[in-house]
């Protein structure tokens, strides 16, 4: 049994897979065996698959309580399976937040929201920002507390896929990447470990200041364009996992965050240029 914290959540993991335990310890460091938080406890297990498969194609199965939400994965993909399983736990249970499908990072006390849209390059961009002085709040979930309007960090491994793995290796020699899991359902995947600062400050909530909808286009020069607020509202509400579920609270939360942030669409063709543009985003009024 292993217990570790991810932001406001605690994970209690049962598994016989020692390689998986090693990777969880590598990734979550000081947050492993930390005092559990009361807000939500996910009881999960990653178990060996059926006996008949163990000899030739061993499998790993993710379970939470009595549910098995996914088909088995190859056993050597167990860490990727666990991370996706935790995404499922958060997405289906954390309705005290408006859950944006986005990355979120912090600089000088202000948060940047990068909603995920197809082709956005969200995770690659989040990884590059996290390796360039921004504090990683989250790669997958922008957890917006709809009572306070603040973003709750949930720093976890950033799953980089396919070409992004090498792009981030080249971008920063400091990138602490785990093993490459080849040919998963999302292609080759390697995880960037969240740094110590992100893990240790995982209960420091942040007020959002910027919403940037990124779009990667190979060869494009960087271009940031102000986005009308009503369009930002539409795009952000469509991007949230539980917007409809939480009703008027979701509407009010999106209205507030759109009203108080500067909203942009961004096209970019290279990491250096978009990072430079994001560094020059105007600071919010005090």
């Amino acid at each position, binding site marked *: 049994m292993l217990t570790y914290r991810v932001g406001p959540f605690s994970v209690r993991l049962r598994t016989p897979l020692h390689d998986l335990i090693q990777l969880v310890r590598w990734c979550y460091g000081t947050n492993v065996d930390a005092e559990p938080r009361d807000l939500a406890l996910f009881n999960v297990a990653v178990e060996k698959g059926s006996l008949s498969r163990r000899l030739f194609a061993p499998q790993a199965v993710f379970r939470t309580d009595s549910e098995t939400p996914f088909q088995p994965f190859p056993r050597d993909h167990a860490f990727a399976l666990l991370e996706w399983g935790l995404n499922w736990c958060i997405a289906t249970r954390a309705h005290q937040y408006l859950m944006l499908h986005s990355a979120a990072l912090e600089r000088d006390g202000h948060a940047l929201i990068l909603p995920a849209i197809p082709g956005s390059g969200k995770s690659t961009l989040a990884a590059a920002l996290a390796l360039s002085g921004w504090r990683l709040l989250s790669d997958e979930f922008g957890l917006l507390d709809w009572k306070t309007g603040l973003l709750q960090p949930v720093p976890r491994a950033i799953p980089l896929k396919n070409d992004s793995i090498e792009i981030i290796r080249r971008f920063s020699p400091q990138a602490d990447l785990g093993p490459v899991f080849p040919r998963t359902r999302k292609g080759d995947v390697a995880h960037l470990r969240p740094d110590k600062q992100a893990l240790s400050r995982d209960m420091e909530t942040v007020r959002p200041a910027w919403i940037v909808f990124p779009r990667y286009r190979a060869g494009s020069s960087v271009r940031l364009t102000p986005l*009308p*607020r*009503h369009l930002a*509202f*539409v795009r952000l*509400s*469509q991007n949230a996992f539980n917007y*409809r579920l939480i*009703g*008027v609270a979701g*509407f*009010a939360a999106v*209205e507030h965050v*759109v*009203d108080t942030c500067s909203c942009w669409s961004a096209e970019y063709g290279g990491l250096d240029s978009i990072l430079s543009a994001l560094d020059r985003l105007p600071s919010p009024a005090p």
Partner: protein
Amino acid sequence: MEHTTDSASHTNRDGDHWRAVSPATFRWANWDAESLLFHGETGETHILNALPTLILLALSKGEMTTAEILALCLDAGAPSPQFSDKIHTSLQTLSEIELVELAASP
């Protein structure tokens, strides 16, 4: 999310009485010429341009006939009597998305 405009065509009677559906559950957000409306009755969010916004705001205060709505829009600066087609279309569209409904004539 539905985007309501005044571009389709439809006719109805100027004497029809209209009312908003559960206007107490409306929540508005307004930016520039566009409005967003959360309708608590259906849980839907709508993006509305100026004309349906004007109509809904008026009907939120009480029932009106089509002719009264047209007069209100002309007062608000609508360009000409031909504008009535747009009023009728907007009312029909708002009715289809359950934001307004015909009321019994008094």
